[in-house]
């Protein structure tokens, strides 16, 4: 109607009664816990294989057991999140590369089977070598994507705080997996055999803190969820626990078993809070219509995109 309305820029972004454009996810807290256990399982398998190849059987056995335990509880967490848990097998009706959840389901199945065989062999020695050797290699190989595909799952949504972090989010998850797998090993392994786990724990913690900082900075205003509410509180907790855990492991982990265990527990807590923070941030981001409309408007204003509407 008004000629002015067409030329005067809006003081602020328009919205429909401040309501979200997107739907928040329907996922339950089992999902970030699965991100955590999947990371432990994936990175533990790699740690176990490498330690075994290096002749550190004590660390290898414990890491295989951690991997098997973590990969064992994972399907239960996922199934309980489904709206129709009795239909969980429908996840394996297809293999769809456009759906990280489909790809991940197959990775989890493969990882679960091979890790279980590898762990059984590590503790019993009863599995014939022609079976155990490829099982170990496959478990370690599948463990790496098992630890990172969950980031692809989140990034492949319309939720701005996840989607716009798509290039860095998998590295946050990889670092968290390295930290938590080695922290789990520190809980069960004597310090004399745990040197590789200590190095991985400290390195992973440094990488996790760095990657998270890079992610939130690159997100700019879209990273607001990480500074407020549940996501913000969890992020601060993750940072504190991770830094404290890494310091304890680096300083005392080689000398004292109780210190190594305490450091490992702190690191595990930090990794869990980190996944929880990222998970909650998605809910906060989806609930904010400005987070959805703002970047789209700016891209249109900058001439990078033409948008979805066209006047005469």
């Amino acid at each position, binding site marked *: 109607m008004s000629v002015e309305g067409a030329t005067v820029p809006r003081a602020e972004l328009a919205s429909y009664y401040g309501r979200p454009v997107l739907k928040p996810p329907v996922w339950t807290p089992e999902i970030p816990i699965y991100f955590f256990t999947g990371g432990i399982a994936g*990175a533990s398998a790699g740690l176990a294989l490498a330690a075994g190849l290096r002749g550190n059987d004590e660390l290898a056995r414990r890491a295989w057991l951690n991997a098997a335990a973590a990969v064992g509880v994972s399907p239960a967490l996922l199934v309980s999140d489904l709206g129709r848990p009795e239909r969980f097998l429908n996840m394996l009706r*297809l293999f*769809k590369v456009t759906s*990280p959840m489909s790809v991940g389901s197959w990775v989890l199945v493969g990882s679960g089977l091979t890790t279980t065989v590898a762990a059984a062999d590590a503790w019993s020695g009863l599995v014939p070598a022609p079976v155990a050797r490829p099982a170990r290699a496959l478990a370690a190989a599948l463990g790496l994507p098992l630890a*990172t595909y969950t980031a692809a799952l989140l990034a492949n949504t319309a939720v701005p705080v996840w989607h716009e972090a798509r290039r860095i989010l998998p590295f946050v998850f990889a670092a968290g997996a390295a930290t938590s797998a080695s922290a789990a090993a520190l809980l069960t392994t004597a310090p004399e055999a745990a040197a590789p786990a200590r190095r991985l724990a400290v390195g992973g913690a440094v990488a996790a803190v760095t990657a998270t900082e890079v992610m939130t900075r690159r997100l700019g205003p879209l990273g607001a969820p990480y500074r407020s509410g549940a996501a913000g509180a969890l992020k601060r907790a993750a940072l504190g626990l991770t830094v404290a855990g890494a310091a304890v492991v680096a300083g005392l982990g080689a000398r004292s078993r109780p210190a190594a265990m305490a450091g490992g527990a702190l690191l595990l807590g930090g990794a869990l809070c980190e996944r929880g923070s990222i998970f909650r941030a998605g809910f906060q981001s989806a609930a904010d219509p400005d987070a959805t409309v703002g970047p789209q408007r700016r891209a249109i204003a900058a001439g990078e995109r033409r948008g979805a509407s066209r006047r005469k």
Partner: protein
Amino acid sequence: MPDAALEVRTYGAEARPRVGFFTDTSLCIGCKACEVACKEWNRVPDDIAPWTGDSYDNTRALGADTWRHVAFIEQRVPVGADGAARSLVQTAAAEHLADDAGLETHQEGDGLRWLMASDVCKHCTDAACLDVCPTGALFRTEFGTVVVQQDICNGCGYCVPACPFGVLDRREGDGRVWKCTLCYDRLKDDREPACAQACPTDSIQFGELDVLHVRAEKRLQTLTAAGQEEARLYLADSDDGVGGAGAFFLLLDEPEVYGLPPDPVATTRDLGSVWAATGAAAVALGAGIAAAVLGGRRR
């Protein structure tokens, strides 16, 4: 990313012309007959909630139990050149213009303007919900529409945050995801969807998409010529972020005023960079583990 035209071609001789909705919001009178007809025909459960106080909209948003949603926007727009309210005489003159064009914006003498729009699933050409669905419950029909197979859906919920329009949601107590089917059952009987049939002003027009596009262009021309310069087509072009949509709209203001994203993009368009980063991170994790184990002294 799967191509919608390719998906329909797999139907072979059973493939039908792509159909959709042209929702011309300049004709909407906010009667909500579409909402009621949809609920009745599709047996969508009631979801009665307290009044919002947001104009006449107590339906709130599309969701598992709302497949048509009429938005009500009250705007006080400066109508004179000086931003002052138009006199009754001027309004009457404008109404003659409105009569000629059949415009229904309900602008009143004090500058209050009503916008009403019936929202629905867009049945995108590049449908993110369909791409991310791990079970194949979401599929492309022979009419080019996007439908959830309720006997397959296991309620994983991935489509919910994947939709750039916030259309899909999981139904409480049922556990599965529900959304507009574009009345798939009626289409199979060569009948138009319930909402389009119930619409008393033809604000919701159903038909073959090619035909609707031609009609929409004409309508846009008429309204623009009548001075409605804010009129625009939304999701009518195949070069937008979702490849155009089966349900497209004529709007009288920016999309976000109606709660619609101005530049929706199917998330799977960035899938290449997502998988590349995921693979690189997996390799980095492997390298980190190897370095930690092999890097130090033995043990």
